């Protein structure tokens, strides 16, 4: 609901039996309308004309929202007054439980969320809500199925609209099929337009390329090369590859390495053999779906829905700060905090779902039969910052243990709540996933990053450097705890031969159970210590 629309709605909620003309509504809800009123009485013709124009504009804007509220069944046109001005009143009929009654009775003011019980932790900088201003007005991330849309234009149009439904990221799944069906230049132009739109909304777009479906390497490479050259930095291509098919596409990856290392950009690889569900990247970190959910979705729903919600609401936690406030029983402190967070998310989700009719309107209109299904596989996120991985002060086994124990408690709570709500005839999805926090989201909120980097100089590093292997091995365990997605970044000085990097990637894919990793190419000999991994 837009701000003006909501303000009008509030006016009628506070005066449920009142009738207002358009002029009265404009006067009551426009801040500083007195100035316009004064200018309308002015003898200075310039001021008078400006005031008349301003008044007319305000009437037009308000009429737009008034008519919208009439269409929604919230207001009614009670009569037509002097100068053919319409008189509006709230349409209320509690007995009939009309849409207006439901809204009047249930909708809460924008931006005001219920007391969550974690405010004290927020004050101490231990916990933060991601995008608190749109906390219940948006979801975090949505995956769109490129192949659902008949034309590129339809896909991009929906993607543009969906940017307003999220507060972090969207993804276009199986985008290689779109590239292969269209002229690469047209696709590139469309991506540029989408990037521009994403930029204005400060959102991120993941373009998922399933290597299995690539038949036209040149067309795909042309689009990627163009996007990298255009520096569409809020668009990230994610290459989803199965281990066994990597060799067949080796030349394609060589070209990719050339493109990305040449531009000094990051190459994101997803290992489909380890994790089948797609990964997407937001400004706050990675997102993915639960593997069992994804299997069900693929078997039963894929192809029938334009997309689905991935992340609903996110809490960020600075574990270093939590532990600095809790010297003993640190695992207990995490479990206790997670209990409060889980309760907060339960409240938040209820508010969020109530509003979903509005902010998911575009997707619902595309496929009304699935109106109740968009949240079917969604999860809330708890993202950890400075959680102890590769921090010398922490025993790595302790890190795994506190993550695992607190996750078990959270999962039990979620399952209980789903059961309770389902039993009450209110079946709703309520899950919480763990993941990492991107440095960009954490910098302003939390303690400074204390991770060490993993730098790969050549393929032999994997054989000769025990520290790298130990680090990756721990990361494999953390991936198991971070069921909402995780990533590991390998800093890579610019290679002399792109084949070296391809061999390294092949080794990683074949050897480690890392679902998602990033090769970050840099020509700097010194990589900042704060590099997030």
């Amino acid at each position, binding site marked *: 609901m837009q701000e003006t629309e909501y303000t009008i709605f509030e006016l009628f909620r506070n005066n449920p039996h009142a009738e207002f003309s358009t002029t009265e509504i404009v006067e009551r809800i426009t801040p500083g309308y007195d100035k316009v009123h004064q200018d309308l009485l002015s003898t200075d013709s310039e001021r008078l004309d400006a005031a008349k124009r301003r008044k007319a504009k305000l009437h037009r804007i308000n009429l737009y929202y008034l008519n919208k509220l009439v269409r929604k069944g919230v207001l009614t046109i009670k009569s037509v007054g002097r100068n053919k001005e319409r008189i509006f009143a709230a349409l209320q009929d509690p007995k009939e*439980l009309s*849409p207006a009654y*439901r809204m009047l009775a249930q909708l809460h003011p924008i931006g005001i969320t219920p007391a969550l019980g974690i405010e004290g932790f927020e004050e101490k900088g231990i916990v933060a809500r991601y995008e608190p201003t749109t906390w219940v007005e948006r979801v975090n991330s949505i995956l769109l199925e490129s192949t659902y849309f008949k034309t590129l234009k339809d896909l991009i149009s929906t993607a543009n609209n969906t940017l307003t439904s999220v507060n972090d990221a969207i993804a276009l799944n199986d985008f290689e099929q779109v590239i292969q069906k269209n002229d690469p230049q047209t696709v590139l132009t469309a991506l540029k337009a989408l990037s521009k739109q994403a930029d204005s909304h400060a959102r991120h777009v993941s373009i998922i390329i399933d290597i299995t479906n690539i038949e036209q390497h040149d067309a795909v490479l042309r689009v990627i090369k163009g996007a990298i050259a255009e520096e569409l930095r809020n668009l990230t291509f994610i290459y989803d590859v199965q281990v066994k098919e990597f060799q067949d596409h080796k030349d394609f990856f060589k070209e990719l390495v050339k493109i990305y290392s040449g531009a000094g950009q990051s190459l994101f690889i997803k290992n489909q053999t380890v994790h089948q569900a797609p990964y997407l990247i937001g400004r706050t970190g990675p997102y993915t779906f639960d593997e069992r959910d994804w299997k069900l979705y693929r078997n*039963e729903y894929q192809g029938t829905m334009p997309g689905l919600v991935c992340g609903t609401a996110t809490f960020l936690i600075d574990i270093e700060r939590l532990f600095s406030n809790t010297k003993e029983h640190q695992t207990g402190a995490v479990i206790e905090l997670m209990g409060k967070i889980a*309760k907060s998310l*339960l409240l938040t*989700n*209820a508010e969020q*779902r*109530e509003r*979903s*009719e509005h902010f998911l309107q575009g997707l619902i209109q595309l496929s009304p039969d699935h*109106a*109740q*299904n968009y*949240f*079917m596989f969604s999860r809330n996120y708890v993202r950890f910052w400075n959680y102890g991985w590769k921090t010398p002060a922490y025993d790595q086994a302790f890190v795994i243990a506190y993550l695992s124990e607190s996750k078990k408690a959270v999962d*039990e*709570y979620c*399952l*209980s*709540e789903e*059961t*309770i*709500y*389902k*039993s*009450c*005839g*209110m*079946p*709703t999805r309520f899950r919480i996933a763990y993941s990492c926090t991107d440095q960009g989201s954490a910098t302003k909120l939390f303690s400074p990053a204390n991770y060490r980097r993993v730098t790969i100089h050549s393929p032999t590093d994997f054989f000769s450097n025990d520290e790298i292997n130990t680090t990756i091995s721990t990361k494999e365990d953390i991936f198991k705890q971070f069921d909402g997605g995780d990533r590991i970044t390998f800093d890579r000085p610019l290679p002399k031969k792109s084949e070296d990097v391809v061999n390294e990637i092949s080794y990683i894919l074949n050897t480690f159970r890392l679902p998602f990793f990033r090769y970050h190419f840099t020509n700097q000999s010194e990589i900042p210590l704060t590099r997030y991994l």
Partner: protein
Amino acid sequence: MIKTKNAMDAWKECLNLILDEGKDYKDENNRVCRELLNIVVEIENPAEDVAAPIHTLNRFHKWDYPPLDRIAHIILDKKLAPEYAYSYGPRLFNFQNTFNQVDEFVIPLLKENPDSRRAILNFWDVSKDSKTIKRDIPSLIMLDCKLRDNKLNVTGIIRSNDVFFGWPANMYQIHVLQQYIASKVGCKTGSITTISTSAHIFRDQFPYIETILRMKREQVI
């Protein structure tokens, strides 16, 4: 068959019976589930303490049970809330977006023919629910209303009943609806009977169930 005067005693007896005589199996979420088939529970006077089981659950402060007015609202509100895959109210008051089973059928029927055996309310929508892929489907599938001795007796059939978490809400909702119909028909509320074709509890609930079974009546009312 369990027959008691009030809801709390019925709940405790039912939990105890499943705990003692149920058979264990693992469900699709890999949880150990203890189940008894076809448990019939009759409560003579549900109005006495119908919310007591819910209050008892809330005493543990471990879960967040929806507030009573919300639970009641769900069975009386004819509009499907966007946050739920289905809900009971629309199934009763706006079945398949066309028919109000309560106000247009059961209430007039009982007014015209108080002895009727046809006052059935159906939650199960074959066109929506009888699909192999569908996971979110009603548990409470049918209510039968019998007006005898100027008292409205209601029987509910629950196909899958988590007796620990679910039955208290089911009982409360049936009672709310019973009150609504009784007030429109102009009669008193009578007994409520639930027939749970799968009555079950989960292993992780056992410690709480044992605590509840040890509670004395005055501790929970």
